[in-house]
């Protein structure tokens, strides 16, 4: 038996002038917890929308559990669960009613619905809130209910689009626990999108870094970090100009490390970083460049992202939180 959960073949989606997903070919194994990591507008949601049959691809094709997402979309839908970015609950109904309607739409019989609602509500620890109107739930509870609902019909693959967007850190940690638990206990393959580095790092077996619709890198978090080749040294200069100058000088001095400039700082990735710092500082002082601080750390996914795309993912985050806050406020009818 084939052990592939998701496979895409040159999958492409264009919106007028914009290519949101550009020739992506990836394979996700059964049972995997797979992450798509990238900034907003990178194409993560578009990719998930195609895989979950919500929008058709412009080019290429994709299979979920060996089923073509265009030719047999209804069969794909029966076998996947989707938790979308914004809430898709009926907030005038109770949690139980939301799940019950879901079960009906997926053709589950009364007894099975009842039993399954109990199981998934316990899994996300909402058992005592089943008969409460969803409107009174907190943001984290709503997200948990949506995860429970997405799981209810025993999907083979669960898609989670930014599962912790807009949640506070404590709630986020909780959601991570549930995601990990259902990946193991329910044995469901999970594909999640995120632009939180820690989320991808903590949760995912493998990560695809996606930027401008393309896969920039794909591997386990450990391998991605190791591939950078050592430690990260950050030297902050007075301004971008000085930083670029230092970057140039460092390269022409026969150094082997990976160098990038961002926010008037120079990022150098190199083995045995502690011994490199004096060397770099010498270069800097010879050129009269004033170094304000030096930092050295083991590479994180931030560094992986920077090395693979040439920019930082963090820059885009704040606007995103604003958007969500606005959305939550405007929800209140």
């Amino acid at each position, binding site marked *: 038996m084939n052990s592939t959960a998701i496979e895409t073949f040159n999958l492409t989606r264009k919106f007028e002038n914009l290519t949101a997903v550009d020739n992506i070919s990836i394979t996700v194994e059964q049972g995997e917890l797979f992450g798509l990591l990238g900034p907003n507008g990178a194409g993560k949601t578009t990719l998930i929308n195609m895989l979950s049959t*919500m929008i058709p691809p412009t080019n290429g094709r994709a299979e979920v559990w060996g*089923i073509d997402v265009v030719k047999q979309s209804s069969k794909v*839908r029966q076998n996947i669960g989707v938790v979308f970015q914004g809430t*898709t609950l009926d907030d005038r109904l109770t949690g139980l009613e939301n799940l019950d309607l879901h079960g*009906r*739409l*997926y053709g589950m019989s009364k007894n099975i619905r009842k039993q399954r609602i109990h199981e998934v509500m316990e899994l996300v620890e909402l058992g005592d809130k089943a008969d409460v109107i969803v409107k009174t739930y907190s943001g984290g509870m709503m997200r948990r209910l949506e995860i429970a609902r997405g799981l209810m019909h025993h999907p*083979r693959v669960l898609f989670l689009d930014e599962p912790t967007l807009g949640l506070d850190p404590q709630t986020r940690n909780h959601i991570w626990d549930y995601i990990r638990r259902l990946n193991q206990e329910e044995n469901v393959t999970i594909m999640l999108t995120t632009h939180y580095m820690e989320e991808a790092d903590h949760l995912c077996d493998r990560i695809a870094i996606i930027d401008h619709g393309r896969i920039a890198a794909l591997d386990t978090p450990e391998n991605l970090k190791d591939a950078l080749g050592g430690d990260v040294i950050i030297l902050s200069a007075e301004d971008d100009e000085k930083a670029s100058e230092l970057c140039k000088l460092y390269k022409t001095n026969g150094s082997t490390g990976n160098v990038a400039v961002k926010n008037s700082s120079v990022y150098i990735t190199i083995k045995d970083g502690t011994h490199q710092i004096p060397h770099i500082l010498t270069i800097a002082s010879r050129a009269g460049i004033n170094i304000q601080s030096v930092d050295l750390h083991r590479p994180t996914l931030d560094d992986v992202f920077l090395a693979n795309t040439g920019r930082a993912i963090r820059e885009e985050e704040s606007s995103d939180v604003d958007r969500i806050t606005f959305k939550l406020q405007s929800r209140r009818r």
Partner: protein
Amino acid sequence: MVQEPPSNLVTALNTVYTLWLREMIRFRRSKSRIIGSLATPMFFLIILGSAFNSSFEMRGGGQTDISFLAPGIIGMSILFSSLTGGVSIIWDREFGFLKEILIAPVPRFFVALGKAMGGVTTAMIQGTLIMLIAVFGLGIEYRSLLGIAASVGVMLLIGLGFIGLGIALASMIESHEGFQMIMTFITMPVLLLSGAFFKIGDLPSWLKTLVYLDPLTYGIMALRYTLIGETEIPITICIAVITIFAMATIGMGGYLFQKTKA
């Protein structure tokens, strides 16, 4: 093992029932909505009806009184609540629930049909309540029990017609700003041209043409016929027009809903 979706007919019926059930739960839960939706027609009926009783004398000796008005007000209530029910897809889109329906492994045409059945049921409940209030509260005399039963069937047809129209419009208009436009530029002309408030026999011909083009005219004539035994258009034509209108708009609504975006 991959799960197969259940067979077509079972899925279809199940989908219609599920969406209907959702509307029923929401309706039952919104007590204020029920009272609110009854208040407007009751104001019309009591205030306008009393005014009619005291001040109107039709040319040619015909009389318009509160019992003439009652079927028109029932029709108005059906128009409001069914159009609102169809257009509520805009709210489902706005609040995300539409995605949950669109991602389900069920045919979208039957989703639209279920939504329509749910909205029509609420419209019929409201129409029936107004009809009963008119009898027991305002002392209007209807022609027969059979007529009353038939009028509920007429409400169903009117309701389906306008909820289909609402679904079709909501499937095309993707912003909730569009909602207010629909309510203003469709509801009011349709209502005022329908003969809910006046007899159509003596109207100037330009106005009469518009009245005959308004599908609600035929619905209200049918209600008036079944309830008080009066009509200015033959009942068979009325029933034919509202049946065709209902089938056309439900077909169109179901078709456009299949193409709608989440």
